[in-house]
């Protein structure tokens, strides 16, 4: 086999598949791949990016990814952290949006915020800052339930 600098699609897919099973420590319903934390995979390294600079989960995420790679026999793969381009909620996948909604967290949207329980758009923000750096607190004015919303960032 001829050595090549380009990472084969199958290897890349395999690593992404492994990481798709690494849950976010704060919101275990979604994986680090769903959230767009995993940027790239090459033969040498997995590139990740933090969501918020001060997110305390950043170190836990790196440790969890390390464990998953080691278990898959990929101890040689390094983990590299990049800041640019900055992470935004645009990096969250469609699948991630659906998983968040199913978990009871309204996904980030610039349109009217929908209650994840009754789908009403008759909702209001209670607090711009929530239980984690990435979420704000909302409430539904129809079913009266409070809920978290992933902030547009």
């Amino acid at each position: 086999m001829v050595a090549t600098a380009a990472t084969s699609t199958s290897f890349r897919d395999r690593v992404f598949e492994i990481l798709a099973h690494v849950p976010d420590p704060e919101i275990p319903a979604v994986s680090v791949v769903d959230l767009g934390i995993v940027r790239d995979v090459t033969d040498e390294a997995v590139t990740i990016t933090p969501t918020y600079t001060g997110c305390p989960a950043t170190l836990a995420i790196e440790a969890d990814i390390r464990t998953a790679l080691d278990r898959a026999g990929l101890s040689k793969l390094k983990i590299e952290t990049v800041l640019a381009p900055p992470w935004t909620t645009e990096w969250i996948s469609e699948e991630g949006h659906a998983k968040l909604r199913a978990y009871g967290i309204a996904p980030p949207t610039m349109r009217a915020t929908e209650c994840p329980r009754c789908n009403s758009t008759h909702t209001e923000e209670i607090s711009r800052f929530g239980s984690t750096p990435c979420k704000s607190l909302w409430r539904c004015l129809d079913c009266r339930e409070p809920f978290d919303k992933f902030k547009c960032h």
Partner: protein
Amino acid sequence: MSARFDHAIRLGDDALILGQRLSEWCGHAPMLEVDLSLANIGLDLLGQATHFLGVAGEAEGKGRDADKLAFHRDVLDFRNCLLVEQPNGDFAQTIARQFLFSNWQELLLTEVAAAPDTALSDIARKSVKEVIYHCRFANEWVVRLGDGTEESRKRMIEGLDWMWRFVDELFDAKDGAASLRPEWDKRIATVLSEAGLEAPKPRRGTMGGRKGHHSEHLGHLLSEMQFLQRAYPDARW
């Protein structure tokens, strides 16, 4: 010491010290939502500080990482502006400090984000997105308190009055930040006018933080923040 180290350490120390100050509110804020907000803003700032101090450590090249720089320096070696080390006071005084600082920090980081030093500009580009949130929070509270009850208005005026003397230092020409002043003045004036408040009377600014000449408050803050590393040097989790 290199200009790059000086630049990074100023950015890092501002964020670190204000982040530590804000963490003092945790569990004490007037209501739960505000408690969360102040803790989250503090957390953002600590994250920024970690990155900026990391760059400072690399620029210095003596093997000091962000933790070493945060926990193994004493007052004279800190380069934060005096504004961020001021005590929290009451809620209005904390809001006044955040209002003046975040509006300045957003302008400053926007400038750093466009600079050629990619290590610093990457951090700035990421951080500025967070600081826009901080500004919104602080600006809204200035309006709410200024345009609220007689008591909240009085306290907002007193808070601004106390913090105002530390504004000039932010725009010290030696730091190259003087050009940000007109835009900052405009932003501050807009919010104050919405709050029905006036800017405090100009007075001679108190300076010195960038040279390590700090107020007494910083020593107390550090003795708490650095307690563990002072008692058990290089202790790790």
